[in-house]
């Protein structure tokens, strides 16, 4: 009954109006017709209701109706002066009806309905004379849909935000707090990893944020936090400069997060019996003697001269499994202009092609030499048509992981088109002494024409549209000099771990942070350790949030700070005017000029 009467009140205002005012200034104890709409059937009931309204009194004086479209067909026009008690049933209609006896006889219901009608009419009338309108509760609710939480009509709407869960690590930091608020305003679901769950933290964060308590150094709490998230914004930093802290938060924390993220996606992929789109593709794993099959060792010379020189002392290389089970590619090249290489025709698993990947990750242990990786592309049948592309790979002493994005490969023959990973059929790793860097201090006295490369695996890094993890690092200019080295070292280690993880990353290095509102000054995006100005926390937060869905932000690291207004004619800086206006996507044009995969 209550439900019906509320609906009646809503729809009755029109017919109440139709019933109440009259031409000709006749006062009448208003008859009010209201329509009870129930399901498909319309039951029109005319009930006499005493309306002691000023509305009828004065509206009865004169009111002209401009246009009127009558929707309910059961009412005769204008003859509402008489109180009709006879109900009319225009359509046969099924169960939508109410027992008419109840309606006529029930005074409380009548009184309530008449009051609602009057309120409705009065509200509309008085609203005409008012300056500002205060929304009624139903409207508040409707407006809530429109304007709150990233609805379509608000300034901060981001399409697809409703389905994205973002984990904010470091949600209590200066940047983290603003990031959380911006995400909430745009309608994202937010999870926060905090160390303590006390009242202060809860007050600091908006209420609908999902709080996970734990430490970044602890893999299990990170796993719990990452599960269910599509993206991660990592703004945590060590609060002190104790090395242990730095390593835990800036280095190990990032590793934990990337590992947990990959694990989570692999887990999801397993449960649907597919492959995770973010996992790396294994091209070669050197575990046993069998894995060396298909790899050929060749040698050659850059010089077309086929006459062996008198000073040729020979070239030798081998690729074999050593005693401790490692695959070692070693040898020496004393021939001038010679090289040795080990190559293999790739055999990828069925259905995988390299075009869904955008780089190679090699885990090798070298002695500091640099090698050249060559990819041959072309039709499989006709190898003489292959085009070759090369990229340099530098190794350190000891084991390291080297990331070589496909964008780094250049064609051997300058007229060839850029590398198309889809057509790659052969991978070669080449060592050539003439290109070794002379001042490699880690070698000491050993001859740069020797080399030894322990190969662990070769994997391909997946490509993607958007970035997965946004990491806020630092440039170091805001830190006092005696601590700077340590902090930067830890941060760099974290950044490298992120780059090699195979996830889409965006690394933002802001200048010294300032507590100012954002959106005021122009920003400079640069890749080169040249920035010197500060930047406000709110601007950094804005960049993090905008980078989540920007395809130009994927796999880029850059510095950002305010523009320095006094410098004139400085072409080093790519100036991006960030105007505080509505549809503001300054990030894409700014980042599109920066180098990828740095």
């Amino acid at each position, binding site marked *: *009954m209550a*439900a*019906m009467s509320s*609906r009646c009140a809503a*729809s009755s205002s*029109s017919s109440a*109006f139709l019933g109440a005012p009259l031409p000709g200034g006749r006062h009448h104890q208003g008859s009010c017709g209201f329509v009870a709409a129930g399901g498909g059937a319309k039951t029109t009931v005319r009930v006499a209701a005493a309306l002691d309204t000023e509305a009828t009194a*004065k509206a009865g*004086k004169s009111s*002209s*109706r*401009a*246009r009127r479209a009558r929707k309910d067909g059961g009412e005769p026009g204008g003859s509402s002066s008489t109180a009709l008690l006879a109900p009319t049933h225009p359509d046969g209609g099924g169960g*939508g009806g*109410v027992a008419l006896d109840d309606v006529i006889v029930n005074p409380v219901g009548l009184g309530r309905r008449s009051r609602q009608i009057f309120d409705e009419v009065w509200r*509309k*009338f*008085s*609203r*005409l*004379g*008012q*300056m*500002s309108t*205060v*929304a*009624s509760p139903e*409207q508040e609710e*409707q*407006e*809530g*849909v*429109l*304007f709150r*939480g990233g609805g*379509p*009509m608000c*300034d*901060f709407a981001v399409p697809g935000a409703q389905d994205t869960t973002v984990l904010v690590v470091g949600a209590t930091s200066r940047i983290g707090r603003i990031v*959380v*608020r*911006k995400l*909430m*305003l745009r309608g994202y679901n937010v999870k926060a990893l905090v160390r303590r769950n006390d009242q202060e933290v809860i*007050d600091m964060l*908006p*209420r*609908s944020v999902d709080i996970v308590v734990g430490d970044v150094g602890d893999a299990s709490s990170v796993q719990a936090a990452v599960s269910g998230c599509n993206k991660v914004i990592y703004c945590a930093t060590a609060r002190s400069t104790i090395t242990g802290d730095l390593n835990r938060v800036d280095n190990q924390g990032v590793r934990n997060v990337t590992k947990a993220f990959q694990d989570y996606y692999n887990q999801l992929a397993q449960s649907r019996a597919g492959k995770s789109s973010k996992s790396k593709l294994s091209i070669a794993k050197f575990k046993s003697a069998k894995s060396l099959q298909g790899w050929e060792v060749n040698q050659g010379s850059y010089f077309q001269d086929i006459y062996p020189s008198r000073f040729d002392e020979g070239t030798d290389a081998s690729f074999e499994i050593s005693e401790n089970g490692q695959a070692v590619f070693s040898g020496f090249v004393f021939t001038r202009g010679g090289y040795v290489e080990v190559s293999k025709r790739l055999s990828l698993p069925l259905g995988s092609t390299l075009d869904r990947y955008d780089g190679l990750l090699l885990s090798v242990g070298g002695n500091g030499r640099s090698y050249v990786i060559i990819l041959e592309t072309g039709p499989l049948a006709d190898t003489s048509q292959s085009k070759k592309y090369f990229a340099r790979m530098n190794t350190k002493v000891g084991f390291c992981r080297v990331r070589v994005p496909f964008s780094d490969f250049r064609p051997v023959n300058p007229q060839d088109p850029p590398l198309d990973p889809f057509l790659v059929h052969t991978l070669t790793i080449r060592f050539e002494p003439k290109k070794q860097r002379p001042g490699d201090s880690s070698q000491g006295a050993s001859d740069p024409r020797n080399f030894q490369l322990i190969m662990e695996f070769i994997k391909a890094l997946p490509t993607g549209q958007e970035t997965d993890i946004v990491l806020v690092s630092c440039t170091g200019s805001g830190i006092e000099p005696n601590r700077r080295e340590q902090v930067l070292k830890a941060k760099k280690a974290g950044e490298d771990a992120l780059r090699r993880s195979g996830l889409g990353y965006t690394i933002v290095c802001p200048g010294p942070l300032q*507590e*100012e*509102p954002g*959106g005021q000054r122009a920003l400079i995006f640069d890749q080169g350790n040249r920035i010197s100005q500060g930047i*406000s*926390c*709110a*601007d950094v937060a*804005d960049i993090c949030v905008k980078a989540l869905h920007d395809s130009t932000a994927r796999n880029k690291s850059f510095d950002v700070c305010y523009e320095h207004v006094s410098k004139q004619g400085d072409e080093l800086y790519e100036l991006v005017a960030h105007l*505080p*206006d*509505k549809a503001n996507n300054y990030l894409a044009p700014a980042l599109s000029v920066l180098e990828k995969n740095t």
Partner: protein
Amino acid sequence: MASSTSLAALPSQLASPARRAALSRSATARPRHHHHSLLRAPPKGCRLVVTCNAQTAVPTSIAQGTPVRPTSILVVGATGTLGRQVVRRALDEGYDVRCLVRPRPAPADFLRDWGATVVNADLSKPETIPATLVGIHTVIDCATGRPEEPIRTVDWEGKVALIQCAKAMGIQKYVFYSIHNCDKHPEVPLMEIKHCTEKFIQDAGLDYLIIRLCGFMQGLIGQYAVPILEEKSVWGTDAPTRIAYMDTQDVARLTFIAMRNEKASKKLLTFAGPRAWTTQEVITLCERLAGQDANVTTVPVAVLRFTRQLTRFFQWTNDVADRLAFSEVLSSDTIFSVPMNDTYQLLGVDSKDILTLEKYLQDYFTNILKKLKDLKAQSKQTDIFF
């Protein structure tokens, strides 16, 4: 405590309102003295006279008080149409926002969802105000009384208390929203009060920013767009007044730009939308965008004015009469707008960035139409039929 001493000084400066005289037909216009230190707000008729001393309490030293961050803001009236957009904008720009809301049994939770802190206070109870101002740099005042409450308690007495408190506690910027042409319509109580409040702020010595507004687009949704969609009757007047509606999000954005602009300090700006519309034009636009004819009831302005006169006869409808006083403006002012070029230039804003009413309503009708129908369909499903 510094705040309590200034607060004790507050109520004594407010003269107790005179008792309302019995109804009288003779409307004598009381002469208005815009004296420097004494302000009267006497509307027509024998209404209560509120006097207030513009000398505020000397700001006591708060050297050992709470440190104030320049990014901290207190928004009064944060649950209103304008207030919530101001809160959203402030949160997005990185401010720490504190919202002053009245204690309610079911509080408005969306503010906390966005990340603002909420404090409880009531402008009609001045003793609750000082605690909310601790550690605040800027106050943005978007509050007004609800139509069912008497205007005077919130809009005048409450505001005066707030301003005096702000001055005493050393608030460094006070932003106040007023109404366009409020100085030209002393017969409308709300406008008169806004005008007096403006003068009070200007005399109080705060670093202020007063923004006069013409009208909000958000209100048009509930008044015209929703009834047209639901095929209900739309009520409009035949007044020739043209009002330049503006999107509250744009108002909020421009407010923050103006707040940070040193040239706009201690200034009175007016924000008007890009074009001034009559109600008939708005209804026609809605009809065109919705694709269906409206069920329009045109109430002549004369009827409104007559209602106002009628309600003034009765004491219990006096508040209603105050609210309906705007009908006087409707019949007199023909254009409720100002040219905005100078303001845009001062703020460094491009006029193309301001949303027009056509675009606003178009966004509404294309995006929300479906959503609302879904909502209504869902709500209909929960009705139980016996």
